[in-house]
């Protein structure tokens, strides 16, 4: 749809980052990423939920059923200590990667 795809491997990092501020449910995570990226990044349902299961299995997030503001039951995901550490690792790796790519692109032919 004309929008760039998410860089492979970055979805987990984006979710962890989103959750670093406050626990959110799945839909809110998707909306939050969309909003913060000024509608550039869209997280599809088909990748969001498998990714959340993956994070759960690694123990980087925990899930809990809570009531939303609109009095609906929703599953809220919360970052764990291990998740915070993992976020740090992924961000620094990502930064290194971006810096490397930038250097390559900045090279004058």
């Amino acid at each position, binding site marked *: 749809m004309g929008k760039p795809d998410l860089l492979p491997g970055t979805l987990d990092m984006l979710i962890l980052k989103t959750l670093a501020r406050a626990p959110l449910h*799945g*839909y809110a995570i998707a909306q939050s990423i969309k909003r913060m990226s000024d509608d550039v990044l869209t997280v599809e349902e088909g*990748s969001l939920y*498998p990714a959340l299961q993956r994070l*759960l*299995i690694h*123990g980087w997030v925990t899930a809990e059923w809570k009531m939303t503001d609109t009095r609906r039951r929703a*599953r809220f995901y919360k970052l764990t200590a291990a998740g915070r550490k993992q976020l740090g690792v992924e961000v620094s790796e990502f930064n290194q990667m971006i810096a490397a790519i930038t250097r390559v692109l900045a090279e004058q032919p």
Partner: protein
Amino acid sequence: MNAIFRKLAFLFRRNRFRSDLDEEMAFHREQTERDLVASGASHEAAHTAAARTLGNPTLLKEKSHEVVAFRAETIFQDLRFALRQLRKNPGFALIAVFILALGIASSVAIFAFVDAALIKPLPYKEPNRLVQLFESIPLGPRFHLSYPDYLDWKRMNKSFSSLDVFAPNGFMMKTPDGLRQTDGARVSAGFFRTLGVTPILGRDFYEGEDAAAPARTALISYSAWQKRYGGNPSVVGQRVDFDGDVYTIIGVLPRDFHFAPAEPADFWAIEKPTGGCEKNRGCHNLFGVARLKPGVTFAAAYDDVKSIALQLQRQYPNENRDQYAYMLPLTDVIVGDIRPILLTTLCGSGLLLLIAAVNVASLLLVRAESRRREISIRGALGASPRRLVRQFVTEGLLLASIGCILAVIGAREAMRLLAALIPRDMMAAMPYLHDLGLNSRVIAFACGLSIAAGVLFSLMPLARLRLGRIREGLADGARGSAGVAWRRFGANLVIIELATAMVLLAGAGLLGKSFYRLLHVDIGIQPDHIAMVRVEAPPEKYSNDTKQIALAREVVAAASALPAVASAGITTKLPIEDADWTTSFKIPGRPDTGEHKEVAIRMVTPGYMTTLRTTLAAGRYFTANDDASHQKVVIVNQAMARKYFPGEDPVGKQISFDLHKAPPMLIVGVIGNIQEGQLDAAPRGAMYLPFDQDPNSGFVILARTRQDEQTLLPALQSVLHSIDPGMAIYEPMTMDKKIHDAPSTYLHRSSAWLVGGFAITALLLGVVGLYGVIAYSVSQRTREIGVRMALGARRGSVYSMVLREAAVLTSLGVVTGAVCSIAAALAMRQLLFSVAAWDVPTLCAVAFILASAALVASFLPARRAASVNPTEALRTE
């Protein structure tokens, strides 16, 4: 590590996980809808839009599920589903598994024989560097060496790191109960070192132990050690008496050791240069076995021994005239005879497996066709294409695995049965078959076949279904074009099946005809109702001609006196054996052209020829008067007469062993050729001397009885025993059984029966396959047939339409098959006996059988087609 535990936790809270995910995703959808409504869409439009943007919920859930689930889990699901599929359709499952198991089992059973005989290396060091040496004479290439020739070959050759000899004759062992025939061989001192075999107990012969001076020693085989000495290590040092000499046992051979050219053999005694034959260059009793020097090729070594033999011919023009060298790889000597039959039957079973696999594959195709809707629905419900493919692979592999397990069980039974069918004497000569069984190679072969079958079975339906086209499958009208395509594909498979069946049938026909021809070879005797037993009298007791003649007379008289015995006779060697016992001779009064004249020789009593009912072509049989006090006489066979007295009447002519030393013998009769070699050998020249003029302490007594010859054997043995309990009385047999069990008969019979069995199964499978294709085609064309009949087609023309389809397939199959059959028959020429590979009657008969079976198979669907009720046919669509 933790991740695995969490996965395990998920495994136990599976339902909880599912409901959580369902609720979560439903919530996600609702939220999306709400946002859309909030931005001004109607409720319904929002609902559809949300559903469209979010996609297939089942597929999405599957994706999440795959994250938490173990990979193996989905395989179990597929497996469960596959099992359910098979259980739901037990007829299909049973037939498919049975056909497949049949195909694999026959191939595996035959492969086990191939493995034991041809693949498993012989129990020697570097067995492919070993050769067997023979002397080649005008009668044939595989004859014995004389001891002096052996010494010269050993001394003069430059090609072998060692050269040794063996004499596979057996012994007469002296026991407290008298002489007993014992299986064994005499070998030169380096024999086991040449083979690269070391005794597991005691010692090997030392270098030079086969000289005249050292004491006589022997090695014992592992099985004889167990059987005769109970596996007691004190066997080393025991003494045994063979042929009047005392031998000390010095060692036990390894359990897996065997040496087929001398088997069966319990004892391996040392060969000595002191025997009467060993001193005579003209007396041949040994075979050579040698190991090629590193780097020397077979051809170079062969040239070497050939030139040595030529040199010896020049050096000893009398003894060595026409004595050439002949050499074969030891492996060829051991398994050369059985190789063609094994490879032929392996190919036969392979073809059967091909038909079986094609048959099951086409069954699967029909099923895949009827499962198009199921697959489409699963696809529409969100099953990923990969998952659907895996489902088919799982089903194919499941089918193949069940087939494989049954096949391995079946193959083990089949092997046992086939091994039990091998005559005892033949089995003894094929020691490599003793450890026949399901070893790792055979199991691997079975698994390989099953995997190949499994892959074939999974790919077949996939190729047909083209998974992308889900909608086409849902819309039922799409059947028309697919049906046609399938019919074409299935038809090709059926042509393959019929052609393969034709090849097997033709092969079986030719082998059967060979076997029939072999059994009806004119062997020059009437073999029915003949009982016989071998006798070996202690030579020290029957030390001279008079005593031996008296014993033979007493034996014949006692046998003749038995109730129901019509006549009895004695020979020194039976028909239908090997071509051993030959002699060279001269014709007095003719200039010596340098031609080497050699024929088989047997000493017989007057009753021998009348008992066997040979045919007398000229002159007379022997009488009781042909003894030492009368003129030396001889009877020759027609082959010898034709070869050495062409265009003359041999009766009244003379022959002699040695013009200077021996008195000439008068030819008194000519008899029809008795088959002195194997059944499939060409008749050879042979001469018969009166036993009374040239007696022996060992012979065979034959008796013709008016009753069942098998029942005469115990009486015959006991009456011989009462004459002298010290005699060895062994190998009781009947002539019919001897012919039945002869190696050439066995090889032809077993190949004919095995390939025949494969052919009949193949015929059944091929015809069933044709039936399936025609029946399917009729069922697909019911509507078309209805329309035709509604438009006025007669039932007869419907019949012919269906039958024409079958006829086209059948004739394509038969023609393809006929061409392949001739090629196959040419490849197995070696197994054919007086039948050409392109034997027209056989090919015609086989084509006729196949065509009639195909006609019957297509008649049923044709009848169904012709009895279609047009109104019903049109309504059902």
